[in-house]
């Protein structure tokens, strides 16, 4: 992995797409992954006028499962409640569980034109690593 990655970048895949993510802390890694997933669906969102919030808690037996669970929870909220995540506050994050407050807005096609549907975040080639400085992760989504 190159050293210059600030937040996230896309990974190429013939059938689907991936994300390579960096963060100074595990909490920041999770937030950058969420931002990457959102950009994959909506492209860049410039406005951040949140008017609602959701509370997410996820349990997992390792940090990989936690990351997949967290991102899939965001997909679930978008699909079922039309919740577009804008900013994130990590409340706690450990190896076995995490919780976060997500500030967002109601889905409106004109405000948030959708680029593509993400079906799920997968475990394929999933890696979460603690580096000398900060954390790195790579993951692939099913489109």
């Amino acid at each position: 992995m190159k050293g210059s990655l600030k937040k996230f970048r896309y990974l190429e895949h013939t059938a689907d797409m991936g994300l390579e993510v960096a963060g100074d802390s595990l909490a920041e890694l999770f937030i950058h992954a969420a931002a990457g997933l959102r950009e994959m669906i909506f492209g860049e969102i410039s406005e951040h006028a949140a008017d609602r919030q959701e509370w997410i808690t996820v349990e997992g037996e390792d940090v990989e499962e936690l990351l997949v669970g967290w991102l899939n929870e965001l997909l679930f909220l978008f699909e079922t409640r039309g919740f577009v995540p804008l900013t994130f506050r990590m409340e706690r994050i450990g190896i076995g569980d995490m919780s976060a407050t997500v500030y967002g807005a109601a889905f409106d096609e004109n405000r948030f034109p959708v680029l593509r549907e993400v079906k799920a975040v997968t475990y394929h080639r999933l890696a979460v690593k603690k580096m000398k400085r900060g954390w790195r992760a790579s993951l692939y989504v099913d489109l």
Partner: protein
Amino acid sequence: MKIRIDRIDACRWRIPPFGKMRTEGLVFATEKMLKALEEEQALEQVCNVATLPGIVGPSIGMPDIHWGYGFPIGGVAAFDPADGVVSPGGVGYDINCGVRLLRCKLSVDELNGLRDRLADALFRNIPSGVGSQRRDLKLSRQDENRVLTSGARWAVNQGFGTDEDLDRIEEQGCLPGGRPELVSDKALERGRSQLGTLGSGNHFIEVDQVAEIHDGEAAAALGLFQDQVTVTIHTGSRGLGHQVCDDFLRVMHRASQKYGIELPDRQLCCAPLASPEGKEYLAAMACAANFAFANRQLITAWVRESFERVLEKGPVDLGLSVVYDVCHNIAKWETHPVGGRERRLCVHRKGATRAFPPGHPDIPAVYRSVGQPVLIPGDMGRYSYVLVGTREAYAETFGSTCHGAGRVMSRHAAKKQARGHRIAAELAEQGIVVRAAGHATLAEEIPAAYKDVADVVRVVHDAGIGKIVARLRPLIVIKG
């Protein structure tokens, strides 16, 4: 990883077992296709599947094989009930993603001047795109449970279609053994508003024209004639299926550890077929499969309605009837001849289609003389194919064949190539009317992003694991 692969004939390749492989790999491809495959990990995935316990026969790769999650897309593998496993990665996120073909009495000329209106009506009547929902079809929890246990039958009971439709669906539109109590609340919530929706990505509804008949006898048995108007519906179990897969990947990850199954890839996590986890996955998967059958049945009803309104013809004059409906992401109990005796096996088909031979009792009586119809969609600019199943497929691939074109270009590369092109306008010049919901969909789904499906079906035809009946050409494409 460099994998040794030996040529068997012009379209068959064998990967001899190495490392922890319990059986060989069998790949259907031309030499040119194989070269492209060696650059990605699909062959490695064929080998990974061969390491799973209780695999019977080879780990099979179809000519449209490409890198998937866990199993390759275009992969087939069968497992023994006593010591074999079931893996959600061998089915995929979109459980019972599949294809349905409708035929009608119209010839292509009868759509003259009506194509745009028909495209608009289909686009309006069938919700498509990300998070598409149907506001006029609110399911109660009880109704949803019925969908999960009875599949397309539920839709027919509600007045969406006829008993004749059900006869022409794989498994008559209902996988037995669905247990809704094993489907999570989250999956149910995702499903409730998405029944009767197309979704996005590569899912589509196409109005096609029968452009070429390759096998007159089989085409006649399937009710297909030259220049006839047909409709292809490609969609699956929507968010409900994705959630069932995600939920059970967690269960299976723990089960793999519990039962001491060594995995080369976490996405291949699985459980013994005889274990509670394995049985529960199959029962939840059946629910998602039934949701998908009901979904395609509802969409069929709205396709009929759209045609009736735009063409101002009644159902009898239009004769829009189901040719067949196939699953291409599924695990099923089937009986197959292995080593001279019949064995009950759990066959995983991920991006592969069942292709049962003439005479098989599980195919509708009307098709029994020619074999099971197999529906192979291509990209939106070129063509799709109708095939029938063969005895060779039954003997060699657990009655399976390919499922589609398979991508050759990543979405990013496709978008780059599409830049500067007015995709919809260019397709319109070729006589194809396109409506798309997603902003990136058209660019990412350009024809060049896919293998030429003619090459794919040519391989299965030449190998004998499918027989080409007809080629369809798109007239109207509705993309999610």
